[in-house]
């Protein structure tokens, strides 16, 4: 029981962590809550279904690299969406008051939800796992000590780890990554040092959206059902994860996501499944009261 909840929590948590990265990176640089990020995750899940549709039309769906293609397609298209949203809805508001981009983001969020509802229908969409994976893979897994880890769960955690490691390498060891860190510390100074601040912001949205979409693809594979309103709850929780971990901090978002996933899983398993969504908020409030900068946040932050 305990181990099983731990595994489930880690699976959900790694999905939250992927989404949380997008929030934390944008917040770290622009200091605003990108409410539309949850919708990017939702787009990612839909894009996975669409990509799968294309692949099976061309008869490529049982190809070994098919899951990778699905993931890449969703990430690239969602990244394009992220960059476009930033260009249209946020860039003109760089110097506006703090509420403006927030309202704008809510507008984008409403727009995207209704866009997907209109074009894809209001009903649940099914992600046909069986088209992508062999039945043996879907049902199989690893069992030990009364607990079962399915291949899909492995796949989710593995993908999340690879993506996060890639991001960490990128941020810490490339020139562009260094530029990103510089902009998040002080945009004005970064500009003086010759960094293309707008370019870096665009890149942040591209990376964040790609990661969010990857989370969407993984969720579509995990649950098999997708709806146009999944972005709201997942986005909210991922945002909480980002705050709990310390907003603006990349490792914090990863930690916060995992923590939140486990708290939910254990809470649902041991306390009450009805109040599953409350645990996230209780953790949030406790963290904000006791350690407002988050677990791995900077004390010198603007709190």
């Amino acid at each position: 029981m305990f181990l099983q909840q731990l595994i489930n929590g880690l699976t959900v948590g790694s999905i939250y962590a992927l989404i949380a990265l997008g929030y934390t990176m944008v917040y770290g640089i622009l200091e605003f809550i990108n409410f539309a990020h949850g919708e990017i995750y939702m787009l990612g899940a839909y894009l996975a279904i669409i990509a799968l549709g294309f692949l099976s039309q061309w008869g490529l769906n049982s190809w070994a690299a098919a899951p990778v293609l699905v993931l890449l397609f969703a990430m690239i298209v969602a990244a394009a969406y992220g960059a476009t949203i930033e260009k249209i809805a946020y860039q003109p508001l760089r110097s506006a008051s703090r509420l403006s981009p927030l309202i704008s983001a809510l507008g984008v969020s409403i727009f995207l939800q209704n866009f997907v509802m209109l074009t894809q229908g209001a009903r649940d969409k099914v992600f046909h796992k069986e088209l992508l994976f062999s039945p043996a893979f879907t049902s199989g897994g690893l069992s030990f000590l009364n607990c079962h880890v399915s291949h899909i769960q492995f796949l989710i955690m593995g993908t999340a780890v690879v993506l996060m490691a890639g991001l960490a390498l990128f941020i810490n060891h490339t020139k562009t990554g260094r530029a990103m860190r510089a902009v998040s510390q002080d945009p004005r100074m970064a500009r003086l040092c010759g960094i293309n601040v707008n370019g870096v912001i665009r890149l942040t949205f591209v990376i964040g959206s790609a990661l969010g979409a990857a989370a969407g693809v993984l969720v579509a594979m995990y649950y098999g059902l997708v709806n146009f309103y999944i972005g709201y709850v997942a986005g909210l929780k991922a945002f909480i994860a980002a705050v709990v971990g310390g907003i603006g901090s990349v490792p914090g978002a990863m930690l916060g996501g995992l923590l939140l996933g486990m708290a939910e899983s254990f809470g649902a398993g041991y306390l009450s499944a009805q109040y599953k969504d409350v645990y996230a908020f209780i953790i949030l409030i406790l963290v904000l009261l006791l350690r407002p900068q988050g677990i791995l946040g900077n004390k010198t932050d603007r709190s």
Partner: protein
Amino acid sequence: MWIGLLCWPFMGLHSAGIVAVGLLLLFLSFRFFDRKIGAVKNIFQKIPGRELAGRIPRNLWLGAVLLAVMLLPLALNKYYLDITITAGIYIVLALGLNIIVGLAGLLVLGYIAFYAAGAYAYAILSTQYHVSFFAALPAAAVLALLFGLALGVPTLRLRGDYLAIVTLGFGEIARIVLNNWDSFTGGPNGIMHIPKPLLFGLKLGSPVHLYFIVLAMILLVSFVIDRLNNSRLGRALVAMREDETAARACGVNTVKLKLLAFSLSAMTAGMMGVVFAAKMSFVSPESFTFWESIMVLCMVVLGGMASIPGVILGAAALVVLPEVFRQFQNYRMLVFGAAMVAMMIFRPQGLLPSKRRRLELEDPTLPSPDESGEG
């Protein structure tokens, strides 16, 4: 073209092509009319009621509006009256939120929780303890006030976005608790058969009566906010909004002020909750989602923060416009989202900005508050 390309996976090639061509034409025509739009803008900036309102005495103006509003129910059928009452409820809600967001500058995203507290208070008091409407009104206000204080005290230390998130969390917790505490709140089914208001044995059940109750509330709240706005307290609130540290240095007790703003806002919402419950004669957690909080916030921001006529206009517009465009069903929300973005880009100060803020925003000699704030 680019957006059409983005639409392609979701809509198929054919319709995405139409979107792309349409947007391209729109874009080109905008380019073409750009200069003319500038001219129109100039005219617009000259027209709006400023000079006009200046010539007519303010009291006369208000009196005329009031008279028109009093006579309004005569001209409306049941459906329109219903929408008007809904708009009225949202107007008061928006005015209440305006105290805390517009005047005090604290971003609160869980405002609807106070509204829910009021609505459920009346629902439970009236169906189980037979408390009358007018007795429940102050009771709900006090309850919401207590909630407001309960939320306000621990969150006082937080600033800006953190406060927004905590209040958001509070609102969600409230909704989930209402949804799951079956024995007390009826769970997802809600509470039914809530009685209509009674006054001296006279049943005020018809929409017209409700209309006047809501109208009275609008007047009361507008009056209070107007007085507050021009008082020492109101100026202290605005000072706190602009720069908390500086305000404190000038001897403003920010802790007390924040609590005051919180409780005033919460009380307004609590009272409106009672009216809402009486109007619908049914409450369920579904009426109190996060989106409701967002809608009220949008009303405040779209109308013009800290401006009473602006907020009233914003609230009325956001309730009435979707009804007007009901025939377009699905597309209206799509357009609504896009309109929010456009509004923020082209007119961030709102439809009718408050005089004080207008002066701040338009005076080129002053640095904008954000530039000085963030540095």
